[in-house]
């Protein structure tokens, strides 16, 4: 009966989402940094935050998404079975709570996917011409933006450039001043970072080194800390 709140089930109170049972209040910021949570939901929250805060497209967490979808599917099926069995009043209450958690995790996952989708569409043409970026996308995402770029350009060609003189029809020109027609992620955008460990000095554009210490919070250009973010030494917040 109480399968959903035992063992390693994903709704076992490890969740960052408000859980039905009162959680210990000592879960404060420094502890959070020291004991890295590794349950799938926390990892999803982390991936979602990084994706939302980063100006660049991050690698798709395929394994994690698959795992969570598996949990969700199992929970949904379980709920279905329990409902048919005609549960008691109290069980209905419990089912409701699990369903709410399911809704929330679903929302988180949808938001993660939607954030990525918005970004990859904005930079579709850049990604499609950069193999290094393509490896960060799932197969489905790659198919999506390939077809998207195609129909987007078709529409522009029919309405605009197809009607211009032949020399002016390019859609991927790079102007003499270095600006291109293809939009690329703005890596110089400022991001808030939270450091999880001592990272050593980072060289600022004017040549001065900036010491990045554990538990520091900085507002800094993404380009400077990109490698640290990819290695997981700092978190975007």
């Amino acid at each position, binding site marked *: 009966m109480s399968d959903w709140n035992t063992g390693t089930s994903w709704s076992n109170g490890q969740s960052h989402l408000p859980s039905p049972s009162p959680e210990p209040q000592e879960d404060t910021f420094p502890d959070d940094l020291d004991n890295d949570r590794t349950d799938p939901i926390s990892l999803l929250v982390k991936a979602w935050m990084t994706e939302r805060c980063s100006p660049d497209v991050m690698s798709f967490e395929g394994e994690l998404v698959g795992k969570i*979808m598996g949990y*969700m*599917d199992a929970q*949904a099926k379980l709920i279905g079975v329990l*409902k048919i069995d005609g549960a008691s009043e109290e069980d209905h209450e419990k089912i*409701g709570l699990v*369903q*709410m958690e399911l*809704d*929330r995790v*679903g*929302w*988180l*996952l*949808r*938001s993660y*996917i*939607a954030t990525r*989708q918005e970004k990859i*569409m904005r930079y579709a043409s850049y990604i499609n011409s950069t193999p290094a970026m393509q490896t960060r996308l799932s197969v*489905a*995402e790659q*198919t*999506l933006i390939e*077809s*998207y770029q195609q*129909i*987007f350009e*078709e*529409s*522009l060609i*029919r*309405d*605009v*450039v197809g*009607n*211009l*003189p032949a*020399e*002016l029809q390019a*859609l991927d020109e790079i*102007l003499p001043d270095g600006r291109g*027609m293809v939009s690329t992620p703005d890596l110089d955008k400022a991001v808030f970072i939270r450091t999880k460990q001592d990272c050593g000095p980072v060289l600022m554009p004017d040549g001065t080194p900036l010491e990045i210490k554990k538990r520091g919070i900085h507002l800094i250009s993404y380009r400077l800390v990109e490698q640290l973010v990819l290695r997981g030494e700092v978190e975007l917040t």
Partner: protein
Amino acid sequence: MSTDPAQALLLECRRSTQTDTLVPYNAAVVTTIIRQIHTIHAHLVHSLRSAAPPGDELTPSPTPPPAVMFTSTHHHLQIRRLKRVLLVYHAHRLNMLRSMLHRAHLSVTHLLPTIRPLLSSSELTFIRTYAQIFMNYRAEFIDVLDIAAAVDEPPKGMWVNVRVVKEVGEVITEAGVVDFRKGGRYLVRRGDVEMLLVQGYLEVVD
């Protein structure tokens, strides 16, 4: 009041962003600008040809006289600006269409009747194909998760207070049959009425 058609298009984009509405496709101005580009381009080609020494295409041409340099640079910049404005205008519309479709739960049939008169024919093709493409992407997740559902607000609770805006009638929900009468207020499960909310039959009351 500016008489520059390109400025007019930009203004349209800005207003449409500010009010979050799609304005009718401005075919007249777009055609005017395309014509302008053709005219300027013809001028540009002409002035460059007349400046080049006649007959010897093979020898590298010496720098043209400053007057020609000036005119051609000017023409070139003008063309570049006009082309950019056109692309901005069209890209803005396509992006807007895309977000409207997402707000309408990817249902083209639901969206089209209201916006059809506002679209150019290629925009119509775009939105239809886009819906198709996105459906394929959505199919990856559909067994477990409908990624077309709105993500504007995280779910705060299981129940939502709704007011019936348009008569719906009886709806079978997981908890039983609900008879949605116009003007009535109901406390229902969010998942049960998501579609009716999107289609505008119901409205959330806080």
